């Protein structure tokens, strides 16, 4: 299969990036060092090319109704210029994806935009059009993944850096607000969103003009490696790893984002999730820290002290900020409280670990 390339591929190559296949995209995983890139975002500012994220617009008289029926959150709560996090579930309430839904500012050409994960854009566009037809709704669904580039600028100094390059009044943007205006002279959408836990923005601009935006934001370029350690410190989910419709089928409640499920709305999977809400879950995504030396990784088994299997790690790393090995694992709800002793099996050896509240980092 040919990998898709982000619009900044040439720039990244010149910048000395190493690349990896992520969701069918050849993306930069590391520019200088994951540790340095991670620290730049926590301490000052870094930029990410996140053009592999999908962009799908939804317009027309029934656009809101269509989004309402296919995402778990309440789209009607959004005013123009606001965004929300939501899950996309199947009839069983199993998460197919997680996404941010934007109701775009009034001066935008489109009304709604949502951002599926890398490699999910076609599947989500199909899902939206199929259901639109089935329900006879009047809405236009357009996959714009290769029309929009997406650059994230994240870190405590992100507002100052971006303010120099844009007319958008960043002080007016609260978390999950989206505005529009030029960035480095390129007409863009500027959203106060991101996936690092830091203050920051995601800039959506035309695919062909991404280089101007990228070049104007003069700060540490960061790859997917740092994006992964940053999001994990915040306990944020990674699609395909912390949940996956076949390999790791999970409801939003299990994955710790039950708060995105608004049961007073009608959406695919609602009845199943109402049942989950009423009856509870068999497993919950729980934070872990290793007490013994070692690094917990995806797939490692989690056991009781007596050796009984409890679950498994979905994401794990050595936290660059904390200098501690941290992980997320699906465990029985009785282990959801912090401070409980478990074992993580690292290369056949049970290592002492403790359950821990997420986010791992106070932000």
């Amino acid at each position, binding site marked *: 299969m040919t990998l898709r390339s982000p619009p900044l591929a040439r720039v990244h190559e010149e910048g000395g990036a190493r690349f990896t296949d992520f969701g069918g995209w050849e993306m930069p995983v*590391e520019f200088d*060092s994951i540790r340095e890139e991670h620290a730049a975002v926590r301490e000052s500012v870094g930029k990410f090319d996140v053009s592999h994220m999908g962009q799908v617009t939804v317009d027309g008289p029934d656009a809101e109704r269509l989004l309402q029926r296919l995402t778990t959150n309440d789209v009607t709560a959004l005013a123009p210029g606001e965004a929300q996090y939501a899950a996309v579930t199947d009839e069983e309430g199993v998460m197919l994806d997680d996404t941010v839904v934007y109701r775009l500012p009034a001066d935008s050409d489109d009304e709604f935009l949502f951002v599926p994960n890398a490699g999910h854009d076609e599947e989500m566009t199909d899902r939206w059009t199929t259901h639109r037809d089935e329900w006879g709704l009047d809405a236009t669904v357009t996959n714009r993944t290769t029309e929009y580039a997406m650059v994230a600028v994240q870190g405590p100094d992100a507002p100052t850096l971006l303010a120099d390059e844009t007319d958008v009044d960043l002080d007016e943007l609260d978390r999950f607000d989206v505005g529009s205006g030029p960035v480095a002279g390129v007409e863009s959408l500027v959203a106060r969103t991101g996936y690092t836990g830091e203050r920051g923005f995601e800039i959506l601009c035309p695919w062909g003009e991404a280089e101007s935006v990228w070049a104007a934001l003069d700060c540490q370029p960061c790859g997917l490696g740092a994006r992964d350690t940053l999001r994990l410190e915040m306990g944020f989910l990674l699609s395909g790893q912390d949940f996956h419709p076949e390999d790791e089928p999970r409801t939003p409640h299990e994955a710790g984002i039950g708060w995105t499920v608004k049961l007073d709305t009608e959406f695919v999977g609602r009845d199943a999730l109402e049942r989950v809400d009423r009856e509870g879950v068999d497993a919950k995504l729980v934070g872990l820290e290793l007490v013994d030396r070692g*690094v917990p990784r995806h797939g490692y088994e989690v056991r009781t002290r007596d050796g009984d299997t409890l679950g498994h790690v979905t994401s794990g790393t*050595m936290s660059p900020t904390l200098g501690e090995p941290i992980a997320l694992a699906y465990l029985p709800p009785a282990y959801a409280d912090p401070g409980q002793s478990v074992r993580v099996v690292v290369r056949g050896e049970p290592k002492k670990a403790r359950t821990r509240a997420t986010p791992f980092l106070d932000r």
Partner: protein
Amino acid sequence: MSFQVPDDCRYLESHEWVRVDDGTARVGITDFAQDELGDVVFVELPDEGEELTAGEEFGVVESIKAVSDVYAPVSGTVAAINERLFDEPELLNEAPFADGWMLEVELADEGELDDLLSPDEYRDQIA
């Protein structure tokens, strides 16, 4: 990018080095290997006194993004381990042929050194 390949070491295809100096054989991973791995965050080493067999795994080096087994270039007894690596695994990135050494081995058979790659052969491999 050019990597350090010191002339006084011999190499394994799996990117370990051994340097024999005054009867002591030091073992580590190469500059190329540390660069491929990225930021090293964890090192697992054998205990002193353990027996190593050439070509067999003796430890693990983990970076943020990858886990990698490390193989013994030579057979022998572990005479010393670099305990600094437990607290400062980044030494493997910063100075793989110096402060980032991993083990000292009492060689069982010096003849095994002849089976290893010469610096030029290793340079060709990573070119």
